[in-house]
């Protein structure tokens, strides 16, 4: 498993804000009435299984993967919205206890659908002020009143002049403006961390850029840390300092965005990058099969049933086939700050050229430790 020093290499300079260690979340499924009577056990879905993640000050970290890979569950556990079955989450070095109220103030969430996030019967002012009232904040650090705090949050979120929006209702705003109101609602509490779950995927394409610009601007002006959950690697390329790719409840690759997206090491990351549309790309080979079932986690490397390295026989040639199919594995650092959980990638530790099509002769494969 990785440790903090390894993850911190790369472009990131700030101190860790949130540290997640060995996070585990599982959901038990429902049985049918008949199954219940017959004492059948409900299948347990392992949504997150041993995730380590560190978010640094002023960092934008993208958590990517297919639906069902556990990325949203990880984000919700970090928010304290789901109680994990195991592992630990710390904020500035202190493990979270049972009381989360002050933590919930400094870690704010922005959801995918701004229309669903806002109460349609509340004015924009009420929506933004609600957080202050819940946290019983009557004045800001410099004695500002509620209205001043709301006005500042709205204008920081790009809704200027703020007074113009106070008495409007969500239906009177466009999708992009609504997402700005949601962001203002987060900013009013002066958070240190924003967890954004697919923050632009419900917005029109031309509006997305502005919301992303806003988030990046807040990172720069307020030194916020941002965790973005996304299925879109193009978005990760645009905004993220580091990218973590999840598959079936585990992080399978993590590192600086340039490393992970231009020099991917894990076959699953490569497969995800292969399906990013490009001209003339329609005939390329793509990974077949559906997203895996989290109630039936395969033995060995979780990706092996779909892995092209295993299927092509390359793994057998390399002599790692048995390990791929039978031995579970963790992340290993392959180049500074760039970690992947793949036996084949571990054989090719060290620097590689971007999107290497095949192993070059200059590289000498090294034996991995048993």
């Amino acid at each position, binding site marked *: 498993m990785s440790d903090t020093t390894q993850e911190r290499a790369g472009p990131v300079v700030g101190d860790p804000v949130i540290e997640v260690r060995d996070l585990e979340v599982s959901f038990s499924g429902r049985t049918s009435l008949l199954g219940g009577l017959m004492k059948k056990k409900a299948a347990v879905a392992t949504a997150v299984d041993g995730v380590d993640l560190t978010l640094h000050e002023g960092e934008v970290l993208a958590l990517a993967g297919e639906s069902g890979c556990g990325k949203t569950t990880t984000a919700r556990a970090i928010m304290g919205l789901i109680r994990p079955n195991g592992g630990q989450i710390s904020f500035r070095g202190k493990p979270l206890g049972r009381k989360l109220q002050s933590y919930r103030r400094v870690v704010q969430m922005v959801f995918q659908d701004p229309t669903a996030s806002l109460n349609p019967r509340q004015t924009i002012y009420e929506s933004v002020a609600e957080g202050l009232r819940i946290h019983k904040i009557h004045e800001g650090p410099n004695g500002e009143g509620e209205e001043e705090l709301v006005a500042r949050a709205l204008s920081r979120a790009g809704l200027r002049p703020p007074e113009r929006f106070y008495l409007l209702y969500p239906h009177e705003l466009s*999708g992009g403006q609504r997402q700005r109101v949601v962001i203002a609602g987060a900013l009013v509490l002066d958070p240190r961390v924003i967890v954004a779950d697919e923050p632009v995927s419900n917005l029109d394409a031309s509006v997305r850029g502005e919301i992303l610009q806003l988030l990046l601007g807040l990172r720069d002006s307020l030194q916020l840390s941002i965790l973005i959950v996304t299925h879109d690697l193009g978005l990760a390329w645009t905004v993220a300092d580091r990218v973590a790719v999840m598959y079936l409840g585990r992080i399978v690759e993590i590192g600086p965005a340039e490393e992970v997206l231009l020099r991917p090491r894990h076959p699953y990351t490569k497969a995800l990058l292969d399906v*990013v*549309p490009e001209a003339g790309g329609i005939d390329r080979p793509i990974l077949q099969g559906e997203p895996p079932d989290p109630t039936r986690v395969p033995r060995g490397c979780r990706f092996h049933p779909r892995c092209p390295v295993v299927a092509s026989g390359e793994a057998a040639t390399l002599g790692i086939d048995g390990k791929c199919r039978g031995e579970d594995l963790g992340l290993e650092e392959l180049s500074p700050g760039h970690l992947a959980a793949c036996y084949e990638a571990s054989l090719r530790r060290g620097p590689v050229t971007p999107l290497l099509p095949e192993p070059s002769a200059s590289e000498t494969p090294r034996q991995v430790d048993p």
Partner: protein
Amino acid sequence: MSVLSVGDLHVTYRTKGGDVPAVRGVSFDIDKGHVLGLAGESGCGKSTIAGAILRLHSPKTKIEGNVIIDGQDVLSLKPGRLRAVRWTGASIIFQGALHALNPVRRVGDQIVEAITVHKLAGEREARVRTAELLEEVGLPARRIDDYPHELSGGQKQRVMIAMALACNPSLVIADEPTTALDVMVQAQVLQLLKSLQRELGLAMLFITHDLSVLVEVADRIAIMYAGQIIEEGPAEHVFHDPAHPYTKALAGAFPAIGDARFRGKPAGLGGDPPDPQHVPSGCPFHPRCPEAIAVCPTLDVELWTAGEDRRAACVHVSGAPVLSESRE
């Protein structure tokens, strides 16, 4: 001859709040074996066009212009003839396979019905054909007796594709066929659609908000804004070298990974898509346009030549009339 020819199409919804002109003069042709991609944001009128081609709108909706499928003017057809054109002349694949399939009927029966209703085959023959169709779209033939809930999202969309092909149409309209699907499954379904389209020589109208998808499947791309086509040309050129400022912004929302221009710099446009009831004067894009000049709010734009085999409705393209007062 084109399989589909749309000429000066206007579609106006009649609502309590007044008339909403959703499509305002759109023309295009699609030849056999060709794919036209129609892209734009929500509310630009792209799905309204799909509905107008097969006359799926309520009778209250005002439709003007020409829609010719295989030589037949769809807008003047009698209901009986129209029913024959639907599914046999042109079929449609909708976005939500979840909602388009009947949840209480076996998927095979739903395809068989499409074939028998059009009297293309008897019950038994239609079943054989259905099994073949399912295999063609990459599903095992035994899935014929499954109910929709027994299939995954991607499999349901494959069933929808099989159904769309059941009556051998010459035109397939795909309205956001992969939008609700996961990235990997989306790529699989796109690949399937494209290979079937090539194999069967289909004409296809592919509607999506995702411009990057079109660069893979479409031969030509038309970009819509406020009910009109504002740029049109070969897919790759429109995506990689857009002429219209709006297309530039749209293409910027789908950055190429590795392109240093987008790293840390999300491209975006100010403002929001216009309300179809209050479309701005002149060029409808001018209030949001970063390249707007003095003449734009009053200039009636049309698709002018914008390089070889390309057209765009922008005063800055080479084919736009030279306006002395605008070149200050």
